[in-house]
């Protein structure tokens, strides 16, 4: 269960201050899948990084499983983070570790014993269909393979909350299906709470229970995906929901 209340994060941009996340309230019930969509630069990555406090909010509170993380000490924060898996938009793999070692690192950090690790690494790599690349270093992997290592790393730990920042941006439809199926499965079986940033609407449709639409740092709309037809109110949502690409609409959509 995740509850953000009045969370705001400011950066210094090239010309003056910039509010990346602007007074956001968000409640993600335990065991549900929360989608986040929005234009590039809307603040999605910043928002998801606020949940495990990789960015400290300038104001507002961030509660995960009932505890306000902004108030706990370092040790407790670390303990909490060990149960919050994260898939980064830029993968952030260690260049000097093999795929298997990268996954194992997460287990070592979580304090999993040596004996148990090998099996879980193998299992996690199998989920993303990378068993044959266990011994390869990231520089020798294709983009999608790197992303899959990052996914395996986040999954290996059996987290109770999973933060995914565009987890399938670099992978083909088959891998996307495979990853999403697994996410759905652990979500349903183990009750893992998932927050998922993506720009692919079919991904959202496939597993999200609720979608938050972000624009300019604010959550401007919520869409429930309970099977009933979507009726987006904001223009942005309408645009994002429609994933057919109509190039003729250039004049209207091209903002540059």
């Amino acid at each position, binding site marked *: 269960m995740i509850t953000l209340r009045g969370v705001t994060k400011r950066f210094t941009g090239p010309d003056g201050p910039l509010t990346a996340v602007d007074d956001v309230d968000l409640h993600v019930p335990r065991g549900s899948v929360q989608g986040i969509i929005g234009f590039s630069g809307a603040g999605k990555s910043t928002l998801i990084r606020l949940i*495990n406090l*990789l960015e400290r909010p300038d104001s507002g509170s961030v509660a995960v499983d009932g505890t306000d993380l902004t108030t706990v000490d370092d040790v407790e*924060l*670390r*303990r*909490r*983070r*060990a*149960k*919050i898996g*994260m898939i*980064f938009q*830029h993968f*952030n*793999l*260690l*260049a*000097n*570790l093999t795929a298997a070692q990268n996954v194992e*690192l*997460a287990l*070592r*950090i*979580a304090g999993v014993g040596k004996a148990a690790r090998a099996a879980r690494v193998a299992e996690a790599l199998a989920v993303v269909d990378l068993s044959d690349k266990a011994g390869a*270093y*990231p*520089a020798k992997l294709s983009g999608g393979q790197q992303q899959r290592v990052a996914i395996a790393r986040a999954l290996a*730990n059996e987290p109770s909350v999973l933060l995914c920042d565009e987890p399938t941006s670099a992978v083909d439809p088959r891998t996307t299906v495979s990853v999403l199926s697994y996410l759905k499965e652990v979500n349903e079986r183990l009750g893992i709470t998932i927050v998922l940033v993506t720009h692919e609407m079919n991904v959202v449709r496939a597993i999200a229970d609720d979608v938050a639409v972000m624009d300019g740092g604010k959550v401007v709309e919520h869409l429930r995906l309970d099977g009933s037809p979507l009726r987006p109110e904001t223009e942005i949502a309408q645009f994002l929901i429609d994933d057919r690409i109509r190039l003729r609409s250039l004049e209207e959509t091209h903002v540059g």
Partner: protein
Amino acid sequence: MSAERILAALPEMAEALGETGIMLLITVPIAVLSAVPIGVLLWSSGPGGPSPSPRLHQVLNAVVNLVRSFPFLILLIAMIPITRLIVGTSVGTLAVTVPLCVNAVAYLSRFVEQNLLQVSPGVIEAAQAMGASRLRTIWSVLLVEARPGLAGSITIMVVSFISYSAIAGLVGGGGIGDFAIRHGYYRYETGVMVVAVLVMIALVQLVQLAGNLTVRRLDKRL
């Protein structure tokens, strides 16, 4: 005559090489073991580091600079009481390793700091997100990613220290550099000096080669 002198000097040269070996064997491990934590602290307490602490950073920075400010001879002299306390004497090979270590630690700490600055911030964030403790982050992430750079820096330091032993001679520290200077500079035995310098060159080439190979073996980015 020169060839004869060179031959006569060979046993002494072997001894000098042994002294250089001892100096390196003592100095390098101590320097590495001490400089890594100091360099890590320098980096992590610095602005932009993971736990900025201006006070600690300034103190460490000042201490490292302090040591690096001293010409080696003055450091050696200033440390004599401490040296005597640690190894019981102020002259000889063992005695000179004490100031040599202190100097090496300061020198290498800066290298370590510099190498850590090159590690991509993204992987450090990843470790934090996994709930890694500070120590774990340093040990399993930071040092792993900085490994090739560190190996390069240590190589640079070891090479410097091979010729550094020249200064050790001031207090009878010995070593191959000192041997070269005593024979070539003080005794005008140019032949002997040339041989000694050739030995040093061979030694340096060897160290550099080993260092380069290690760096290449550790660096997995290509």
